[in-house]
């Protein structure tokens, strides 16, 4: 176990060094959408609790979730949910060792972005 030169090693270049690429943006969006879904999920849990608490409290929570702000959060959450789901499928494909070369990675990125918008539209129409 060599412990020479600890703390004085060159750092590998981080995000600000690289030019953003289409594939790298679709990757960071996976993380952003996944974690941002917390807001929508907590709203859903709160709405359920309100429904269990009685009509008066339900009216408040339902009012918030169907207001323009609630609608905006829910719309963005639906898109984030589908985006994160498709990007997750991409990870499951990558885990098998497939689709890792540049050409496939780029077409997967297009599929994830396009698919997330299509599924969001389908959700808006059906729900």
């Amino acid at each position, binding site marked *: 176990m060599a412990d020479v030169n600890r703390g004085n090693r060159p750092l590998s270049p981080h995000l600000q060094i690289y030019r953003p690429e289409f594939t790298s943006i679709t990757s960071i969006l996976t993380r952003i959408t996944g974690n941002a879904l917390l807001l929508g*999920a907590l709203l859903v849990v709160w709405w359920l609790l309100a*429904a*269990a608490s009685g009509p008066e409290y339900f009216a408040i929570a339902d009012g918030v979730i169907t207001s323009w702000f609630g609608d905006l959060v829910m719309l963005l959450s639906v898109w984030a949910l589908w985006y994160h789901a498709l990007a997750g499928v991409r990870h499951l494909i990558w885990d098998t060792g497939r689709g890792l070369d540049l050409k496939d990675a780029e077409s997967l990125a297009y599929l994830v972005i396009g698919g997330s918008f299509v599924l969001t539209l389908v959700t808006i129409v059906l*729900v």
Partner: protein
Amino acid sequence: MQFLTERKRVIGLGSAKTGTEHHWSMTLSSYGLLILVPLFVFTFGPMLGQPYDEVVAYFARPFPSVVTGLTIIVGFLHFKGGVQTLIEDYVHGAARTGLIIAMTCLSYGAIGVALYALARLAL
């Protein structure tokens, strides 16, 4: 010491310490969510903005209630694993430990609250 194998001696000394369990739990929950999320979106979604009586009657039925409960359980456990990776990437020291503990409490807390609400709606 001579009873230790070479493998045993180096286990956990890599930069990642452990991680295969974490990766596997994320893989497993993501497959679960691939089934649950579409079911959840199209059973839960239509109920937002519906009258109180209709919502209560709807979640008293087994299918919407079980789908909602499972999605919230698996979803928040998946979130707990994901946000842990996020925190480990960007936050260091005591703040990292504190944030991971807070997010774990929040995840289990949300699961607890949702299950209580669903049980009360069902009974």
